[in-house]
Each structure stands twice: as C-alpha cells, then as structure tokens.
C-alpha cells in the first residue's frame, strides 16, 4: 500500500507523537527544534494545538495544510515573533527568538517594488550584516571575507547572473533565490522557509527544492519548509507536519500523507491518491479556509 517515497519507511503507528518516536534510535543527536503539546492563539482563536515535533540537524521537514490554518504562524512561533499559548518550544536549545542569526528565515510572498534600485547582492548582504549598527567601512578587515561569503552563497543558489541587477527588476523567482541566499548567508543551523516555491515555475520548483534538500542534507541544516504542494519536495523530505483545523499530525511523509491519517485528522473522508509518476494527490481535503473556520468559531 505504501510505495516507498522516502528512504525512511518505518512501520510505526502514525500519531501526533509519531515524530518523537520515529527516530528514537539511541545516540541520536538532540533535536534542533522541539515542540511539545504546542498550541497557538491569534485574535482570540486557537489555530492549532497539541503539536509535537522534533527536527534534528540535517532533516528536511515540510509543514502542510490548507490556507489559513496557521502554517505561517507555526514558523512565526519558532521565530519567537508570535508567542505560543501553551506547550514547550525549544529552538537550538533556547527559547524561540533567542538563537539570533543561527536561524535563517524566508517570509511568505515578498516582492520588491519594481522601482527599487538596490542591487540583489546588497539585499543578500543585509542578511550578513544588516543588524549591525553604523555603516560598512570601506577598508575594514572583514570586508573581503564578507564579499567572498556573499559571492559564494549567491553562486550556491545560482543567482550570480542577476545578483548585480536592481532587485526590483528581477523576476519573482529570481528575487526568491536571492532571498534564499540572504537567509543562508550566515550559515544558519535552522532554516525556516515559508512557501519558498511560491511564484516559481515547475522546473524551478524542483531545482530550488533540490537546492534546499542539498543544503539540508550536506550542510546538516535543519530545514522547516511551509509548502502548498508536497510533490516538488516529496523525495527530499524526512518529516511532515500536517496541520488541519485545530490539530496536527507529524511523522514521515508515508505515515502522514495517508488516507487513514488524514481522514482521522480532518474527521471527514480524505483520500490520498498516487499518480503513476509518483505524485500524491489529496482528495476531499477541506480547502476553503473561511467556511471551515467559521463553522468552528465560537
């Protein structure tokens, strides 16, 4: 029933705590991100609760779910921008928001004003030194190293061809790559990406997904990526958090993206179909966020 999509296909029961159980092998490194019974409230409404998740160094985790369910909010909780209503949350063994530049962040859907005449490379550079006071001094000792690091990371995301153009003139996909470079430039140990594949065409989606997968697995960066569609990242994934109205399940992609699990999560029949080329299609998932949340509000 479960065609192997990810190398990890342990037959463990999918449950809310599957994540912590799944890779509980002895000697496993301490999780870089840990959530225990986390819940969040915005505007007087509980978005999700009872979320358990462990992400270790070099693991690629996707956050999935319908619009408006609180995926971006989960990322903001990990950043410490939105406080958790309950539960325990640790990022790099600290409270959220305290790990500083060890966490890289790419917010959802940003685009620059077409008239903005600042080079892409300068925007990348802000990721490196934007939080430092003063102005960059022309003859400082670290300047050469910084320039090399920026060139390296721009090369890594394949943005060298347009990094010197004003960023407002770059296409959405080009801007996205530059912003990924900005998030990577300080060699973060945790990378939080909110729909980075948004505004990319299909070939670029798989290219950027492969890039992030490579960074994740080779440089041992813990990646948490919010995604709208799981398919472009499916074969890079180690772990999936699926958020639905109120609750969430986490585990390996096989465990979570499964008809039974999602049916239990949503409380309505949901079917996961697999096309012949290995793509997953979720059928019957309640997608309309407004109607859905209205039903549960109050």
């Amino acid at each position: 029933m479960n065609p192997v999509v990810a190398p990890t296909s342990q037959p463990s029961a999918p449950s809310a705590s599957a994540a912590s159980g799944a890779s509980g092998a002895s000697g496993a490194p301490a999780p870089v991100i840990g959530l225990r019974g986390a819940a969040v409230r915005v505007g007087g409404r509980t978005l999700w609760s009872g979320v358990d998740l462990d992400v270790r160094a070099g693991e690629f985790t996707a956050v999935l779910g319908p619009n408006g369910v609180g995926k971006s909010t989960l990322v903001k909780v990990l950043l410490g921008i939105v406080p958790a209503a309950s539960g325990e949350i640790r990022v790099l063994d600290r409270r959220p928001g305290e790990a500083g530049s060890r966490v890289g962040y790419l917010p959802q859907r940003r685009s620059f004003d077409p008239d903005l005449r600042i080079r892409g490379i300068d925007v990348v550079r802000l990721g490196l030194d934007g939080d430092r006071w003063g102005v960059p001094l022309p003859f400082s000792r670290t300047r050469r190293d910084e320039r090399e690091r920026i060139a390296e990371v721009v090369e890594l995301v394949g943005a060298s061809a347009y990094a010197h153009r004003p960023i407002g003139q770059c296409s959405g996909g080009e801007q996205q790559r530059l912003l990924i470079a900005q998030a990577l430039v300080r060699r973060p140990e945790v990378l939080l990406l909110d729909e980075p594949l948004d505004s990319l065409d299909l070939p670029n989606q798989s290219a950027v997904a492969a890039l992030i997968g490579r960074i994740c697995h080779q440089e041992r960066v813990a990646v948490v990526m919010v995604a709208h569609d799981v398919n472009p990242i499916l074969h890079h994934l180690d772990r999936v958090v699926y958020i639905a109205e109120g609750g969430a399940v986490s585990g390996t992609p096989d465990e979570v993206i499964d008809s039974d699990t999602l049916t239990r999560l949503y409380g309505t029949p949901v079917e996961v179909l697999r096309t012949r080329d290995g793509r997953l299609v979720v059928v019957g998932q309640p997608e309309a966020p407004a109607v859905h949340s209205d039903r549960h509000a109050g």
Partner: protein
Amino acid sequence: MNALLASASASASASASVASAATSGASGMTTSVWAQPFFHHALLAGTFIALAAGLVGYFLVLRAQVFTGDALSHVAFTGAMAALAGGYDLRLGLFVGCVLVALLLAGVGRRGKADDVVIGSAFAWVLGLGSFFLTLYTTSASGLGDGGAGTSVLFGSIFGLDGGQALVAVLVALAVAVAVLLIARPLLFATLDENVAAARGVPVKALGLGFLVLVGVTAGEATQAVGSLLLLGLLAAPAGAAVRLTDRPFHGLALAAGLAVGEMWAGLALSAWIPQCPPSFAVMAAATAVYAATWLRPRRASRSSLVVARG
C-alpha cells in the same frame, strides 16, 4: 521678549540684507558679500544643514516617506508661527512642532510608518492653524508683530543667521548626521526587508520612530535654510538624484549627502553673485537642475547588463 522679536524681524529682513550688502558699496560689491560675516554663517550652517538633509532624505526616498517630509514642512511653518505668537524663539517652535508631529505620525501609522491618508488629512489642517497663529502674531496686542516673519519661515532666511544661530544649526545638523549614520544599516534592513529584519532582532518599530524624529529635527533645520515651502526640495531632490545615479545603498547615501552640500554651496554662491536671486531659490534651482539632469542619463538597465557580462 524684545530680543526674540528683534531676532524674528532680523531674519525677516534676511533677503533684504543681501541686497543692501550688495548695493551699499559703490563697486566690487560681490566680493564684499563673500567677505561678509552673514555669508560665512550661511555657508557654515548651510553646509551642515544640507549634509543632514541629504542623509535623512535618502532614507525618506527609500522608505517612500517623502510625503511625511511634506507634512512636516507645513508643521514647521505652524510651529514657528505658534512660537512667535506665544513669544518664544521661532526655532523652538520649529523643532518642537516637527518632532512632535513626526512622533504623532509614527504613532498613528502602523509599524512606525505613517500612511498617506493620515498625513493628507493632518497637514492641511496644520497649515490652516499656522495662518491662524500668523494672524494672531501680526495683530497681537504688543503691536510689534511683523508679517515678514511669516515670509521668512516660508522661504527661509539663511542670510539672516547670526554667529550663535549658525553654531546651533551646525551642532544640531551634525548630531542628526551622526545619528543617521549610526542607524543606517539596520534602518536599511528594516526598510527593505521589515519581516526578516524583525526576526533578526532589529528593532524595526523603534528605528522607524527614531528616524521620524530625525526627519522632524531636519525639517526644523532645513526650514531655517530654505524655508518650509522649499524644504521638501532639499530633502527629496538630492536623494532622488542619488537613488537614480547608483544602485548601491551606501554609495547612494554618501552621494545624496554630497549632492545636497554641493547644491547648497552652488545656491549660496549664485545668490551672492546675483543679489536679486534669494538663496532659497538658488539652492532649489541647483537641486532641481541636478535632479533633472539625472533623467537625461541613459537607462541603467543597459549598464547593469554590461556589468553582468563582464563579471
């Protein structure tokens, strides 16, 4: 009280003083203007005022807050008039008015950024208030009120600064310039990339607020040089030109400051040479000419692609 009024009327007759200085000597009057202490004061104060205006203006343009500068120019007039009507130093009204309203705009707008509707509705009312204070001042019981004070605030009176006033202007402008340079990098981050900057621990809101205070102080400063009606030009024109000339942020910042200072010098020199040409007009003419000239340059897109091709 008398001293204050005297200083107000002294600045009111500022532009007249150039003319009189130029015409008093029978011949070689232009050289005499260059040697006059009022010209030296103007040059000194003008240089630093332009420096501060250029630096602040660059971020105003980048943050799309030029309109805020416009609102503050109205406030500058009203603040100065209110101070005169109340019997205080005109500059006190300038600074207090500009900074208070800058804070107000920041408080009303979200995330330390005032939005256009708020500014739009506020500034017309503020200007009306200014004309009320002007009337109050000119028709005040003392009878010493002078309508010229209104003109000097509207159009500037840089040739009317005495040594002490010039020194204060220099010190305040210098403080603004140092403050802008100190916050330049995080402010740039917060301007271009608010969410990431906030996640990185940059105090986005406080920076936006602090920046508006600096804008307020600069507006008060620049009003002394070019007047409240024209101060927007000193804030926006050099910065606008710099933004068009370079796509590197810190080069742009330096260029905006450099252009502003150069335009100030050119304007002061021009009005020293041509007595009929008031300094505010000359400075604005220089600023506008430079800004217009940047539009004559070929499109940068072709230049950037050359750079890419080379690299």
